[in-house]
């Protein structure tokens, strides 16, 4: 029962708007944790806070019980945190393999040695490429490695983005709506991949998702937020039975 990532009483204000109001949540190592809530609840803002793309006004974000205030967004990956974005953020004009390789950027070592292709750097490049191909296989992308990302269907692009995050060999991966816009088949496939990433690679997963059946199926634990504040948290079964959650999603029964 060790918590890998924890945020305590985090508040984010955009001018007068309070996007996150004293949100607390923790992610236990080795689990798949869901973060759900209606549109505008502050999920993506919280994700940006956790991955240091967004500063917060109050509270603490702890990773391995260490405060990450001073870290830049590009330094989070060295700590072991990788993420994907809600609107796919890939390098569209590059091949799938190059996209995955960028994920392993923090392993290239000394940039100077790397750009002159010194022997050490060359060995390193081979190792990175080999691992990238293994990850591609795990995500069923091995036939697409030489294709340009912009030519791929949406569901595959989602997988490429996940592969890029996994190439960093993270401890935890933050997935922002991994199945949004995917059809049933793609959703089932991604669900399976998330479970395998968690079981086989031992990567902790924190995911934001609107597809409830998928969240209930893959998550060990779920945090619900609404209007930028904590609403409930518990196992999928507890969340399904929580009256506050039902009210938030379906609206108050006024009659």
């Amino acid at each position: 029962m060790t918590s890998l990532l924890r945020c305590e009483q985090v508040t984010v204000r955009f001018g007068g708007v309070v996007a996150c109001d004293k949100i607390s949540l923790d992610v236990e190592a080795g689990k798949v944790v869901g973060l759900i809530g209606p549109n505008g609840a502050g999920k993506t803002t919280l994700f940006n806070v956790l991955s240091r793309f967004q500063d917060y006004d109050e509270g603490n974000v702890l990773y391995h019980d260490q405060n990450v205030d001073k870290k830049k967004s590009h330094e989070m990956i060295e700590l072991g945190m990788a993420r994907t974005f809600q609107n796919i953020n890939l390098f569209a004009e590059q091949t799938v393999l190059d996209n995955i390789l960028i994920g392993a950027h923090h392993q290239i070592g000394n940039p100077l040695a790397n750009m002159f292709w010194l022997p050490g750097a060359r060995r390193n490049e081979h190792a990175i490429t080999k691992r990238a191909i293994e990850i591609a296989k795990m995500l069923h992308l091995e036939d697409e490695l030489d294709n340009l990302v912009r030519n791929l269907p949406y569901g595959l692009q989602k997988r490429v983005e996940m592969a890029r995050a996994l190439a960093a060999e993270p401890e935890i991966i933050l997935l922002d709506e991994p199945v949004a816009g995917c059809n049933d088949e793609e959703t089932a496939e991604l669900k399976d991949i998330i479970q395998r990433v968690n079981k086989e690679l031992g990567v902790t997963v924190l995911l934001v998702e609107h597809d409830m059946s998928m969240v209930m199926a893959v998550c060990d634990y779920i945090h619900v937020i609404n209007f930028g504040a904590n609403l409930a948290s518990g196992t999928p079964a507890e969340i399904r039975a929580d009256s506050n959650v039902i009210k938030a999603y379906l609206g108050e029964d006024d009659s």
Partner: protein
Amino acid sequence: MASQAALVVIYIMAAQGVSILTGYTGLVTVGHGGFLAIGAYTSALLTKHYGVDLVVGIVAAGFMAAFIGCILGLVFLRLSGAFMAIGTLGFAFFMGTIFNNVPIFEGREGISLPDNRVFGMVIGDDGFYVVSVLVLALTTLFVYCLVRSGVGRAFMALRDSEKAAESSGVNRILYRTIAFTISAAITGVAGALNAHIVNYISAEVYGDIWYSVDFLVATVVGGSAVLMGPFIGGAFVALVPFFLEELADFSYILKGAVLIGVLIIAPAGVAEVLGRPIRAWRRRQLAAAEAQNTEAGT
């Protein structure tokens, strides 16, 4: 003839420098004439006052341009797109004013340089051409390695999506500065050669922004993110005025027309279009090899 050929080599090299920044890193520069001038004056002053070897002058020019490029990269840290273009244009004007007015650069009077020496031996036009080609071979090899390395990947990642690049661990400040430094260094080396090709430099030429514009045109026409791009673009820009000498200003019109045509028909540059059949052929080879493999497997 040899010096005309050397001029083509210099244009190709300068365009290579621009392509690192504009093609691979996605930062449009309209100021690389400034780096050409920095390289030219560094080597010229060292040769005039200290009688250094051409090789020393070239290396010193590369380092000086790299140093200024590094500083400029940090100054322009937050600029991108059109703002970067205007910022670098401002840099070219700034450098032009300095070369025109600071006494050591001798303004429009210009500086005459002694004969070119390589390892103590005086070299003529042909020797100078050979030296230029050797330097171009080195810069080409370097660019080839660079764009296929993890550093080159980081440049292209920043070009295509800064957010995704940063979330993948690319330090935006570090890699932008590296790109600026390398880009400036290569164009600075080209500048050193440009000073020694006629053994005379003056602010009348280097204080203007025409070099900057020419290099950008060369990079865009040739193809900015393809290894062969600067070769095609650099040769085009350097040779058009040569072949159309009698027509004088018409060469500018032709350059402009070709630029517009390329932007409309092949925005990724001529080299990219010419490379298509080669890439398609290589893909077919790979597919055939793969088919054979699977056949052998079953």
